[in-house]
């Protein structure tokens, strides 16, 4: 692992998944990308394992964690959700804003249903990552590694509204036209 870390290259901000929790994002060797963050407490570790089992987390944990950090290997081209420009056109092979917001709602709804938690703000969108060019049936959207540290218990009143309120005003403005899709996806996710 140390040998691999010595070959790391800088990564463009457009791709960097760093979000305050996840502190390192690097290209390692010829074609691997690793992210890392400090290991959480036992409750957070438990949550991380549940998120991983549920298939929510981008990439795969690297087994040989150091005592201080959790490492994940992630797809090289994965991008942070909050730096995506709008895509209006869709179709069977297009991943439009509407589709994206539906998936974001469904993912948030499933996190609520399975963990009784919402992704905390004030910029909850920075916890999510997009993978482009996928085969039909695969998922475009995941939470970035370290998301367990951003989860807070779901408030009893109106969890959907509570989750929406955790996104930044800029993000809500950008996807204003697709917020109904977020709500539809959320309802699907909690079922």
């Amino acid at each position, binding site marked *: 692992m140390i040998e691999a870390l010595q070959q790391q*290259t*800088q*990564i*463009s*901000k*457009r*791709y960097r998944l760093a979000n305050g929790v996840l502190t390192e994002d690097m*290209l390692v060797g010829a074609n691997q*990308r690793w992210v890392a963050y400090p290991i959480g407490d036992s409750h957070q570790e438990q949550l991380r394992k549940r998120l991983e089992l549920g298939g929510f987390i981008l990439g795969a944990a690297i087994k040989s964690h150091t005592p201080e950090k959790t490492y994940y290997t992630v*797809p*090289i*081209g994965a*991008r942070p959700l*909050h*730096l*995506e*420009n*709008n*895509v*209006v*056109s869709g*179709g*069977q*092979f*297009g*991943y*439009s804003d509407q589709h*994206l917001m539906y998936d974001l709602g469904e993912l948030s709804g499933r996190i609520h249903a399975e963990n009784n938690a919402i992704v905390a703000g004030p910029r909850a969108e920075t916890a999510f990552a*997009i993978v*482009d*060019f*996928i*085969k*039909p049936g*695969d998922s*475009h959207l995941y939470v970035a590694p370290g998301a367990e540290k951003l989860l807070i218990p779901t408030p009893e009143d109106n969890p959907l509204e509570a989750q929406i309120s955790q996104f930044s005003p*800029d993000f809500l403005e*950008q996807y204003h036209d697709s917020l109904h899709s977020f709500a539809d996806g959320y309802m699907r996710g909690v079922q």
Partner: protein
Amino acid sequence: MSELTHEAYIPDVETEEDRVATFEQQLSSVTDVRTLNLELDLYQEDPVRIGVNQVFAETYGASGPTLAVHPNFEFLTTGGDVGFQAFSTRTGKRSAHGVFFGQLTNKEGRTVEVAVKPHAVEARHSSATDYVTNAAVEKLGMHNLQPVGVMMPHNEETAYSLSQLDRTITTLDSINWKALRKQDRGDYEQIWSQVARQTALIHSLGSVAHGDLAARNIALKVDGGIFPMDWERAKMSLNPTRDVEARYALSQEDLRELMESMVRSPQGSFKAGLGLFEHEDSWTGFEKLIFTEYAQTRVGYARNPAEARDVIEEVAELQSSLRSHLRIID
């Protein structure tokens, strides 16, 4: 009022599903898979035209649709029956060609991920042009998408050019610039600084111009490097010209296209852009992000004082014409 409505005259718009289905159908009827061996001499006056003739010669005489592939993808010529699986993506949705993406698999299970660009019947030569210009850029040693091949139809059908899908890039029109600028002004400026220098390099190579240098045709790599792609309309000759009008014609078109794509509003129904300068004077913004560095780099690449004088003359003319053009579109 006539009973004929306006809608009655609107032709059916082909959907992405239709485009993919048509490609799959044509691919399944390919009778001939060949290797394309181009001999490009970039010091000729019009090497692209000569290369296109070579492609047509290589694909001539087949009894059905022909798939002609770059030597790097020769494995597609063995085993027969090349299949295609389309990908879902956010990329390429502003492409006028209706580009789509997916994976080619030959009978032996070997695969290559590709971007597929359809070319209408009346412009089928552009599939060969697209392939040849990409091969020429490869020969120049500039970073580019690897050309995979062309699929030439037998009858009056669509032609296709294919290049290798690179999962480690995205295009500049995919970025939420407002958010990136807010997050890291330095990174934002660094990207455009590279665009300025790369454009200057291209225009310093001889008689080379990209021909369609909009933000959607500029790729950003995961390591932060940028490179222009989609060279289908490129002018590509390493023969330099001292004629200022000829050089100006090449550079002006690229800079005008780039400037328009940076200036125009994302909400525009015609040539929607990035809207980077909505809160400042557009020329000041463009000059600061691109033009000053472009001009300095161009002069820096001049090989002798005479060439430097030519470049300074060209750059002055560019500045004047781009500012005038901006008054029309702004």
